[in-house]
Each structure stands twice: as structure tokens, then as C-alpha cells.
């Protein structure tokens, strides 16, 4: 291409290189001398069918090696460019820096790696489902800021109906209420052409206000209304006995399995079926779809409603899949992180799932580190998922392309 584009890209790779060099220096100067003793990572429990030995890493030497590697990658990026692989090298660099950080925090102690990976999946669930809901609605060009509210509505409904009529009923009700808010969003933005951002914010504020009011006024009085059963983990026979992989992937509850299955189904739907092709056409060129006899409005209604149902399911995770009771604003911005996962995943269901795993990892990392007792204040650790969001969306994503008609209402001639 052009010289100028190369220049811009070169600057970007130089910044990436500088970041890696900085990280390397940081590790070598502050962390390596501090990491005395060995870090022990437990990979299995003694009760496992096939126990595997622990992973034992000498703290200081490991961190020095990593910092040297980071410095090498950084200098290479800084000097040579290698624009094509720059973001991948930056990603690898960040990953090994995180590994070194983990070794530093664990030095002299022992830490369950498998447990953290298991928590990663669990924590990724609401983000993945939120991201999936985002993919489904933005693929038909409806920007869905309301996912946060839909998650919260799902969490609340799951707790309430779950307490009254059991977990399955709670789950069905959460999905239905999520779908209802999806339908409301579709009605506002498709039929009444309300601004999509405002409509989404309206849903968020409405759900937040309503659920907070009920939980503080009603649930305080009648505690039985906020005491739902929690879905237990389901062990997949044989597979769950595989070391590391087994407990992480095959000993989870229905929300984790659900997120993976839904991501697969959504991929099949969007890219391999007739209706998926039509949905994408509506998101890219609604006028073209219209002239071919595709009902643009109905397509948007259906997809945004289904997106709401997915978000409702994700919301139920907070209560039925986790603690069994509802707290005010308990979704804590997971819906917005889900939107970031959607962008990081380039509007692809599997991409959104993988991105959610990155955020879930940051979330579970901060949780486990707090237990390990690092000198870093826990408030800073709690920022990790959000910092990861910013770094990923601003730095690593690069040029992702949204559906062409995203956010634009369609007016029939």
C-alpha cells in the first residue's frame, strides 16, 4: 500500500514495542528480586481420578527469563516493525507478562491454576452472553446499549420466580423477561425510530430503578422471595476426569455449557442458514434486502427479541447460576463489557465468546490474587477487568468493522 499508511502502522508497532520493553523492565527491576522461592501451581486435586503433578516454577529466574523475552520482542517490534504480526506479538507479550505477574504473586506459595481457569469460564459467562446478545442485535443494525439492563432484568426475574417456583421456572421467566425487553427495544427503535442509544439507556435506567426499588422495599421484608435455588454443576462423564481440561470445561453448570452452545448455534444461524444471511443483509444494506422482499422490520424485531432472550439467560446466571439471590445493580457493568467483547470479537459469536474469556480471566485473576494477598490493594485489582477492556478495545482490536447500517433506523420509501 502507501508509504503513509506504513508510517502510521510503524508508529503503532513502535508504541507496542515500547510497551513490551517497559513491561520487561518493570518485571526485571521490581518483581524478579522480590520473587523469592518457588511458585507452586496446583493442577489437580488429590481426589482426582488421574492426578497430575503440580507445576513448580522458580520465581526469580522465571521472571528474569520472561523479562528478557519481553525486551527481545519489544526491541524487535520497535526496530523492525513487522507490522503484520505486531498486534499478535503484543498479545503474546501481554499474555506472558501476565504469566510472570502470576508467578511473582505466587512465589513462595501455592495456587490452584485449574481453579482459576474454572473461575475464568464461570466469570466469562455473563460477558459472553451479553456479547452474544450484542452480536445478534447489531448484526441486524440495532445498537443494543440496553444489554446491561436486560442482564439485570434476567437476574432479578430469575431470583424472584426461582424463589417462588423453582430454578427451571426462574430460568424460563428470566429468558422471557429478557425477550420482552428486547421486544420493547425493537419497538422503540424500529417502529418508533427512537434514538438507539437513548432507548438502550432508558432500558438500563428503568430496569435498574425498578429492581433496586423492589429489592430494597419488598425483598427486605419478605426474604423468602429472594432465596432461589442455584443450578448445580453437571459433570460430563469421562470428559470431566481429564486432568485440567476436565474440571475447567466439563464440570460446570448449565450457564457455561449454554454460553458455548449458544455461541455455536448463533454462528450456524448467522453464517450458514437462510435466515442468517437475510439478517446480515438487513444489517448491511436494509434497502437491498427490502427490494428482495425481505421484511426488514420483522427481521429486526425477531433478532433483537432473541438477543434479549440470550441476555435474559445470561442475567439469570447472576442469581440462579451463582449466589441464589438478587442484589441491587449486581450486574456491575458486565453488559457493557459484553459489548466490548462483541467489538473485540469482531461481531462474530465465537469471537465474542473468546473475548469474553479474556475478560473473564482478568476478573478471576483479580479475585484469586486478592486471596493470595499481594501488596497491591484489592481496589486496584478489582479494576483489572475494566482495564483489560480498555487496553483490548483501544489497542489490540485494530480496525474492526461494524455492520454497515449499524445504528441507523430504516425508513421505507
Amino acid at each position, binding site marked *: 500500500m502507501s508509504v503513509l499508511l506504513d508510517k502510521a502502522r510503524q508508529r503503532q508497532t513502535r508504541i507496542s514495542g515500547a510497551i513490551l520493553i517497559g513491561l520487561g523492565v518493570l518485571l526485571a527491576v521490581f518483581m524478579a528480586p522480590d520473587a523469592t522461592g518457588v511458585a507452586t501451581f496446583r493442577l489437580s486435586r488429590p481426589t482426582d481420578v488421574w492426578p497430575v503433578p503440580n507445576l513448580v516454577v522458580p520465581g526469580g529466574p522465571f521472571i528474569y527469563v520472561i523479562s528478557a523475552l519481553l525486551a527481545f520482542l519489544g526491541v524487535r517490534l520497535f526496530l523492525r516493525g513487522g507490522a503484520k504480526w505486531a498486534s499478535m506479538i503484543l498479545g503474546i507479550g501481554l499474555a506472558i507478562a501476565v504469566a510472570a505477574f502470576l508467578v511473582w504473586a505466587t512465589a513462595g506459595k501455592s495456587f490452584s491454576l485449574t481453579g482459576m481457569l474454572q473461575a475464568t469460564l464461570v466469570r466469562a459467562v455473563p460477558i459472553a452472553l451479553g456479547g452474544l446478545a450484542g452480536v445478534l442485535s447489531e448484526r441486524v443494525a440495532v445498537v443494543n446499549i440496553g444489554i446491561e439492563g436486560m442482564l439485570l432484568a434476567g437476574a432479578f426475574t430469575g431470583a424472584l420466580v426461582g424463589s417462588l417456583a423453582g430454578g427451571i421456572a426462574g430460568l424460563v421467566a428470566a429468558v422471557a423477561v429478557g425477550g420482552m425487553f428486547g421486544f420493547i427495544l425493537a419497538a422503540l427503535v424500529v417502529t418508533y425510530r427512537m434514538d438507539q442509544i437513548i432507548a438502550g439507556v432508558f432500558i438500563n435506567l428503568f430496569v435498574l430503578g425498578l429492581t433496586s426499588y423492589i429489592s430494597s422495599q419488598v425483598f427486605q421484608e419478605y426474604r423468602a422471595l429472594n432465596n432461589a435455588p442455584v443450578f448445580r454443576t453437571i459433570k460430563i462423564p469421562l470428559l470431566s476426569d481429564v486432568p485440567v481440561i476436565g474440571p475447567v470445561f466439563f464440570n460446570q453448570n448449565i450457564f457455561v455449557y449454554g454460553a458455548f452452545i449458544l455461541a455455536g448455534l448463533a454462528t450456524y444461524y448467522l453464517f450458514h*442458514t437462510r*435466515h442468517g444471511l437475510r439478517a446480515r443483509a438487513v444489517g448491511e444494506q436494509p434497502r437491498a434486502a427490502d427490494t428482495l422482499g425481505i421484511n426488514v422490520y420483522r427481521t429486526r424485531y425477531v433478532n433483537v427479541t432473541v438477543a434479549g432472550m440470550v441476555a435474559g439467560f445470561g442475567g439469570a446466571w447472576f442469581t440462579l447460576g451463582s449466589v441464589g439471590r438478587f442484589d441491587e445493580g449486581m450486574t456491575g457493568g458486565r453488559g457493557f463489557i459484553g459489548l466490548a467483547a462483541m467489538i473485540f470479537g469482531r461481531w462474530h459469536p465465537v469471537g465474542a465468546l473468546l473475548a469474553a474469556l479474556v475478560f473473564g480471566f482478568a476478573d478471576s485473576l483479580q479475585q484469586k490474587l486478592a486471596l493470595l494477598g499481594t501488596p497491591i490493594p484489592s481496589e486496584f485489582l478489582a479494576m483489572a477487568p475494566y482495564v483489560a477492556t480498555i487496553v483490548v478495545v483501544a489497542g489490540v482490536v485494530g480496525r474492526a468493522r461494524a455492520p454497515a447500517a449499524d445504528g441507523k433506523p430504516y425508513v421505507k420509501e
Partner: protein
Amino acid sequence: MRVELRNITKRFGPVVANKGVNLTIEPGQVLGLLGENGAGKSTLMNVLCGLYSPNEGEIQIDGQSVRFAGPGEAIRAGIGMVHQHFMLVPVFTVAENVILGIEPVGRFDHLDLTTARSEVSRLSAEYGLAVDPDAIIETLPVGIQQRVEIIKVLFREADVLILDEPTAVLTPQEVDEFFQIVRSLCEAGKAIVFITHKLNEILDISDRIAVIRRGEIVGTGDPKKLARPDLAEMMVGHPVDFDVARAPFVPGDVILGIQDLTVLRDDGAVAVDDISFQVRSGEVVGIAGVQGNGQSALIEALAGLRRVVSGQVRFDGTDITQASPRERHRLGIAHIPEDRQRAGLIGTFTVAENMVLDSYYAPPYSAGTSIDWGRVHTDAAAVAEQYDVRTPSVHTSAAHLSGGNQQKLVVARELSRDTRFVIAGQPTRGLDVGSIAFIHERLMAARDEGDGLLIVSSELDEIMALSDRILVMFKGRIVAEYAPHDAPVDKGDIGLAMAGARV
């Protein structure tokens, strides 16, 4: 399949777009539908293809009366339309675009792309429409995209193909190829409706011509018996003089000098690639080229609306490369933007307000902090009169004017002061013949008063009629230069250059 339109009337509120139209479309024939922009051609065809339903009248297919509730029904009845603005999904493949809406599927709604590909290949072979079924639309040149549109209609087994201004985006060579395709479709028994406002093309391709003016069919005839001036008179309603009156070419000193200019598109790709040329006082330099080859970015850079990445622009000896639009304006550079709706005027502002968009801030219109609206209104009324801007009053919103009057308003604002240089992008796109003639006259008057002019147009005929020198742009570079006053210029030759054959 024979289609008859009987007494079709279509109204939009108080506006009558089509009035009592009768038209017959015969299989194996090309019906040329000729009319000016806004005459009602597209409305009529949108009625036929089911996008609009008529207020009165009926459509008959082989003698049977039909009603279409939407485009889907018209397609099923065998009527397909190729729209002027392509109705393709840019990120889809050719095959996906072709099947969209009537997709072949297997179990579980699974798309059967294998069948889709082989259908596309079969249709391309049958009608000589070479395309790769797996190519992504946005990577294809417009000529090929148009073929995809035709394949789309054929895949729906249409017997009647409506082609709305199909040649607007094509180079002269592509037009020739396109005509061959149209003829092969006719030989296969398809009925074609060819909508255009270009007289030459309609005489070349049609078996029968119908002329539409102000929503009514004002004449039909055999192209072999009709002459160009007669058709033009039918289309416009009065005799038309095609020649632009011009004084002899008396070039002055160089007024605009462009040296090694490079400009980027919004997405960072190179739009104008290291070009250099000069324009003299009293000279019209016309830039020909297929749209999207950097002309827009060039104009924006010269008007100060797009950053120059490298190179220099000199105006009358001073470097204006980094000058703001207002500084350029003060130097006497007028700019008629390509898109009058977006960049030329503010639709919700009145005619008077639009007239002073460039001068409201200085005397005589502004003193201190307030604007002398009385002065603005009297001056605007005078200029509107002088430039034939037909408006109920200067207090009317610009959005309520017709396209021709909007453009005349832009031209009036830009040329009604002391100018030394005029940059004009697509100055007559989408206008009626009367407005075109008026604007051409004004541009030539500026030239004869000693202004330098740079005109960009995708209408090659316009470039050839106005220019003292023609530059052809292709992929951001100037690939050919012609001086019509020295040697006659061959249109086919320019066409080849526009297609990049001269690089």
C-alpha cells in the same frame, strides 16, 4: 411476457408524479424510457416493480390484471428491476447476493451455496456475463457489480428487466459491453425497459422510445425515424440548444499551480497520488474519470476541506497548501461542492441565509455583533433573481427548492462576488436541461472574465463541452491530457484512459 400499464396515476400527497400513463412492454424488445431527472421515470418503474402502488390505473400481464403488494410479488410475477443505485450487500459474495431472498436451502435451513454457485455460473455463461461467484462485491468494479444485479434478476426468472439509468456509472467502453449484454437478453426473449436521460444511448439501443415529461407520456416512436433535436424537444418541452457558447481561448498567466500533491481518503488509503498540473486564468481544465478515482479528494483538498499530506498548492504565487477555507475564499476562490445537499447548502436554512453563508460575518452584512438581516434579504432577492433561482421568497427553506434551483442557489452564492478561480464538482449532476444550460453559461462567463476554472464531472459529454484542457484521473493519478483547441479529441480514447488502459 407482455406487460401493459393502463392509465397509471401515482400521487405523493399533492404532488402528481405520474398521470394517466399508458405503456406497453413487448418481449424481445428494448423500450427506451426517456425523460429528465424528476420527470417521473423512476416513480413509474417503481410502480411496475411493486415498490409503490398506483393510486389509479392497473397493470396487466398477458391480458391479466395484477396487483403487487410489494417488490417480492412483482419479482414472482417475472418483473425485475436493476436500480440506479445498486442494491447489493458489499460484504457478501456474488453468489450470496444473487440468492438473497430466494435462497436454496437444505435441512435445518442450511444455505446451499453449491447450488447457488453453479446457478450463477450457468447464468453467466448463458448470457455472457462473466463474473466469479465467490468474489466479494466491494472488491469488484461497478461494471461487474452491474452484471451481478442483472444475474440477480435473471436468477429470479424475470421476463421483464427494468434498467434504471444503467450507464450512469460506466465508462464508454463498459457501455458498449453493456449494450451487447442487453442485446443478448433481448434475443433470449426478455423484455427490457431502458430508463435514461441520455439521448444518444436511447437512440442506439432502443427498439421503441417513450418520452415522459412531468409525469405524462408525451410521445412514443421509432428510434430510426426520430432525430436527436426532436427527442430533446419532446423531453424538455421546448427547443434545446446543445452547444455551449464560448469565446475564443485566451489563456492568461498561471493562477493555480499544483505540485506533487498527495491526499488521503478517510480510511487512510491514497486518493490523490502525487499529481502536478497548472491552471491558467481564462482556462477551463476539466477532470474526467470514473467516480472514485480521487477527483472528490482533489477538489476537497483544493477547497481546504481535506488535509494535504504532501506537495504544494500555489495560488497566484502564494502558497495556500495549508490555508483555511475562509482564507481561500477571501483570495477569490469559489467552490461549488459535489454534493449540494450535504456540502453546498443547509437545507433547513432559508434561501437568504444560504446566500450569505460565506459572507455573513463581514460588512455589509455584519457590524459589531449583529447581522443586518434587512440588507441580507434585499441582496439575496437580487442575486436570486439574477441567477434564476425560482423560489416563492428568500424566506423559503432551501430544502423546499427543486434540485435545479438548489444548485443555482449554490452557484449564485459562489459566483455572485469577485472571483478569480472556480472549483466545481459535478456542477450539473441530476439537473434538468434548463438548469444545466444556465449553469454552463455562468461557468463560461466566469472563464471569459478571466477566471481559472477546474471542473470535475463524471459526465464525459459535459467535460468535453466545457473544457479547454482535459485531464483524465485514474486511481489518483493523471493518466492522460488532451487539449481540444489544438487537436480534436476522440471520446473513445478518453474512455480508454478513464478505464486505466493508458497507464
